[in-house]
């Protein structure tokens, strides 16, 4: 097996001016923008094209959706704080403080877990038990698609953060700068996921 290391994982690539991991992360995020952008566009087009009440196919009002903007707002706050803890983890590592960086990573992980638990226990389960399934209306099919896909991204972020808290933490001993850069890439992804929610929350819960 080859032991050759990847080039430009720490120092900037001469062409792009940034290290390769960050470049790759931004390419990935560009594809994510297209994915969520297409879904947001679908939401807007279907909402604008929906017939007016009293048609049975009309777009539901806030009361008809039974979505609690307070629960959604709480989860928004949780994600905003998690982005702050994520960037603090990176800043601590950048200053060479591994234990502090690790504490902030744990906080980010726990906040992400809080988001998922609240989403499932206070929103998904009561809604599904109450018959508000994706097949109920266009709104609910879009609601579950958008929030479900976002939830999967949050879980994906938790897996990555969990890896850097567990087996991936050994990289800090070998190459602290490389580890810090990987946390920065994780932070970029995490900020994107949180930014998607910042747009989802007003669109689904307030407007």
């Amino acid at each position, binding site marked *: 097996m080859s032991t050759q290391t990847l080039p430009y994982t720490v120092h900037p690539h001469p062409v792009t001016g940034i290290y390769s991991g960050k470049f790759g992360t931004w390419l990935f995020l560009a594809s994510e923008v297209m994915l969520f952008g297409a879904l947001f566009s679908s939401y807007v087009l279907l909402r604008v094209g929906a017939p007016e009440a009293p048609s049975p196919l009309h777009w539901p009002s806030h009361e008809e959706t039974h979505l609690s903007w*307070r629960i959604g*707002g709480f989860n*928004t706050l949780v994600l*905003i704080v998690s982005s702050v803890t994520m*960037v603090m983890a990176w800043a601590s590592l950048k200053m060479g403080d591994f234990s502090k960086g690790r504490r902030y990573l744990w906080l980010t992980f726990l906040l992400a877990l809080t988001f998922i638990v609240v989403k499932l226990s206070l929103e998904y389960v009561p809604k599904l038990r109450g018959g508000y399934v994706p097949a109920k209306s266009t709104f609910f099919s879009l609601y579950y698609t958008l929030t479900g896909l976002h939830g999967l991204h949050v879980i994906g972020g938790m897996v990555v953060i969990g890896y850097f808290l567990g087996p991936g933490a050994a990289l800090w001993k070998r190459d602290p700068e490389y580890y810090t850069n990987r946390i920065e890439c994780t*932070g*970029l992804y995490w900020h994107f996921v949180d930014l998607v929610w910042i747009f989802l929350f007003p669109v689904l819960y307030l407007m």
Partner: protein
Amino acid sequence: MSLKAFHIVFVVVCSLLALGMGVWAIRDYRGGGDKLSLVIGVGSFLGFVGLLVYGRWFLRKLRGVSYL
């Protein structure tokens, strides 16, 4: 764009959301909502100010880190 730059963008978007949320919650309260709406509205306005203060603090803390 580094995480520092992206975080600044994030803080700006969040502060706009806090401002919008504050207006929305106060309107909900004035339209017959309960006191919790008023509390959330005031809290959102305070959050807006807090995010601006935090953004300035963050920029000062990471002064030496590149935006690229």
